[in-house]
Every structure is written in structure tokens, then in C-alpha cells.
């Protein structure tokens, strides 16, 4: 900005618009007006250089904090929790709520008693996490993979589509993707297939899969 009182009206208008000329969003007559002033006015030219430098510094300022990698998981937990709560409220008329709660409690108690008598050891170990309710695809076998650095997003999506893989959540900050295999897929076969794919740098099983 300048204090020069001798500026023409056209220079003042151009100076006002300069920030948006610098960022390339000015159009039409306004852009032409600024260009004309830049050719003829040293004041405008100097201010343009300062603003361009400022823009360069701001765009190159990469020191901002990155949101934590767990952020998306927390968000989905919140969304899923809200979804379950609102679905439950929508299903039950309010005046039936105490009766419904009592009935639920009875069912739970009866169920627990029945479960206690059964031989739980022969049942398959099904369980749910208390954090994120995963999409149905994530119930299938999962693998974790890292792409080679030069593989584009489009090529990554193409690989997922080719093999029918479903992305489970967001990739980590380190670029680790967790994918769910198609139903009835042979995990070992997929493991080798991904491992030999030229786009993939590394493939492994998730920690919980390895432990099974």
C-alpha cells in the first residue's frame, strides 16, 4: 500500500484489485484495467511484487499442523454413534420408551442366562469393536499395502477396482492402505497377487489378521 496522495483514480482502483490479480482470479475488464496500470504505474508494479512475494511465502508455508491420523476414525465413530441413536429414537414412540427399555432389559437378562448355559467354547468368536462401525466389506479378510511413490491416485483406484478391493477408512499419513478383500476371496492368493503387482511396494496383513 502506498501513501502517495497523487495517485490517479484508476491507480487506486487497480491497487484495490491487485491481490486478486496476483492470485489469478480477476477476470474481464477488471483484469485489463490492472494490467494497464501495471504497465504504466511504478507504484502498482512495486505493490504487485510485494503481494506476489507475500503469496509465495504463504503458499510455501508448510509448517501447519497436520490433523492427526486418528481424526477420521473419531469422526466416523461420532457419525455412527449419532446414526444409531437417532435410528433408535425414530423407531420408538417416546411414550413407549420406558416399556421398551424394560422389555429390552428382560430380553437381555433372558439371553444372558441362556448364553451362560450354552457351551460358548464351540461358538465362533464373533465380536465388534467399540470404536468404529466398519462397513460390511471390512468384515471380509483384510490386507495392508503401500504403493510405490510414483503411482498416481488414479492408478491406485484402478488397482482397487481391478481386484474388487474396498478401502477401509482413510490411508495413514505414511501411505498405508487397509483394504478389504472380496467375499470368499483367497487371502493368500490376493497377498501374492498384490505382492507381485508393479504398482505395489509392500503388502502385509493387518496386525489382528496376523495374530489369528
Amino acid at each position, binding site marked *: *500500500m502506498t501513501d502517495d496522495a497523487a495517485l490517479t483514480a484508476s491507480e487506486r482502483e487497480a491497487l*484495490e484489485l491487485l*491481490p*486478486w490479480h*496476483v*492470485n*489469478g*482470479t*480477476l477476470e474481464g475488464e477488471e483484469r485489463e484495467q490492472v494490467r494497464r496500470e501495471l504497465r504504466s504505474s511504478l507504484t502498482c508494479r*512495486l*505493490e504487485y*511484487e*510485494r*503481494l506476489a*512475494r*507475500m*503469496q509465495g*511465502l*504463504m*503458499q*510455501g*508455508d508448510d509448517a*501447519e*499442523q*497436520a*490433523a*492427526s491420523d486418528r*481424526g*477420521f476414525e*473419531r*469422526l*466416523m465413530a*461420532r*457419525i455412527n454413534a449419532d446414526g444409531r441413536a437417532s435410528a433408535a429414537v425414530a423407531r420408538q414412540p417416546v411414550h413407549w420408551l420406558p416399556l421398551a427399555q424394560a422389555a429390552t432389559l428382560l430380553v437381555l437378562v433372558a439371553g444372558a442366562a441362556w448364553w451362560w448355559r450354552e457351551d460358548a467354547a464351540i461358538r465362533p468368536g464373533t465380536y465388534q469393536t467399540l470404536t468404529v462401525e466398519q*462397513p460390511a466389506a471390512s468384515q471380509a479378510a483384510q490386507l495392508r499395502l503401500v504403493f510405490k511413490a510414483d503411482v498416481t491416485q488414479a492408478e491406485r483406484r484402478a488397482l482397487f477396482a481391478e481386484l474388487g478391493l*474396498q*478401502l477401509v*477408512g*482413510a*490411508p495413514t499419513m505414511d501411505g498405508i492402505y487397509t483394504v478389504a478383500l472380496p467375499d470368499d476371496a483367497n487371502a493368500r492368493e490376493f497377498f501374492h497377487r498384490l505382492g507381485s503387482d508393479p504398482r505395489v511396494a509392500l503388502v502385509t496383513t493387518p496386525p489382528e489378521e496376523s495374530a489369528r
Partner: protein
Amino acid sequence: MDRRYGETPETPPDGGEPEVALVARIAARDQQAFAEFYVLYRRRLARFLGRVIASSGTVDELINDVMYVVWQDAARFERRSKVSTWVFAIAWHKALRALERQQRGKATALPESEELAAPERGALEDREWLRRGLDQLTPEHRLVVELTFFAGCSYGEIAQIAGCPVNTVKTRMFHARRKLRDILKALDPYGPKERP
């Protein structure tokens, strides 16, 4: 609340924007699309919110607050603005609320002087020096500067995001530049090397 963040009837439809397709999939409750959208915007929002509210502790929460609204309102996005304008409008609304909460906890008033003192230059790099100068602006002025020079928004888009007339955007930019006068002069590539 029936609020259309950043969308006004004057805004032309934005065809062909890949993010529009993602929003449509989010509206259909596609969690994979939502994950992609989250990754796409996480850094930009972290930077934007971090600069506007200058409080690192709440940025992560605010990002999720913004994304929560995206998930809830995706079906109501009517393509009357760019997706980024819509998202930044939500972010600005959330940032304002956070700033109000911060201000309630503080009695200190914002500086009233027409021109802010340039921070001590010393051995600071230009980038850090500029950042300290920007920190002295009011949130409304910082918003305009950030959206112009970092996000690359037109003044019309900024008006949509801030929910104010275009002339107000220009006025805020004018005052922001005035307050940053010494800093801008020091960034002059042809100017003297000795800084104030």
C-alpha cells in the same frame, strides 16, 4: 438450521468439478468417498483453521466438526458454489464460533491502532516474520488475506464464505494491507535489505 453455507442464488453452477461427484457419493452415504474427501481437505482445513483461529489445540476438533457438517448436509449441497467455497464457509462458521468461545475466556481487546507494529525482524526468516505479522490481524482480516493468498479465492468467493458483501471483502483487504504496511515493504524484492 436451514443454512446453505457459502451458497447464494447468484453463484453459477459448477460443472465438472471432481469434488462434486465425491459430495454426491457422500450424500448417498458412501463412507469410502467420505474418506477420500477427508484426505483431500484435511491439510487445507488444518492450515486454514490453524491460521484463522491461531489455536492449535482445537484445530483437530474443528476439522471434524466441519467434516461432520459435510456428512450431514451433503445431500443439501446444490452446486450453487464450488465445493471448496462450501467447505470453507462451513469452516469459517465453525471458526467464528470457536473464536467467540475463546473471546469469552479473555478480557483483552483487539488492538485498535490503524497500523500494527512490525514484529522484531532480527534473524527471522521472511516466512516467520510474515506469519507473526498476520497473527496480529483481526480474524476477519486474516480470513480475507488467507483465502486470497493461500486458498486462491476470488473476492466473490470470499464474500460467499464470509457471508458479507463484496465491497466489505475489498475494504477488509484494504485495511489488512494497511496494517501490514511495514511487512509488505520489507518484502519488496527491490527494497533496502535493512529492515525496520
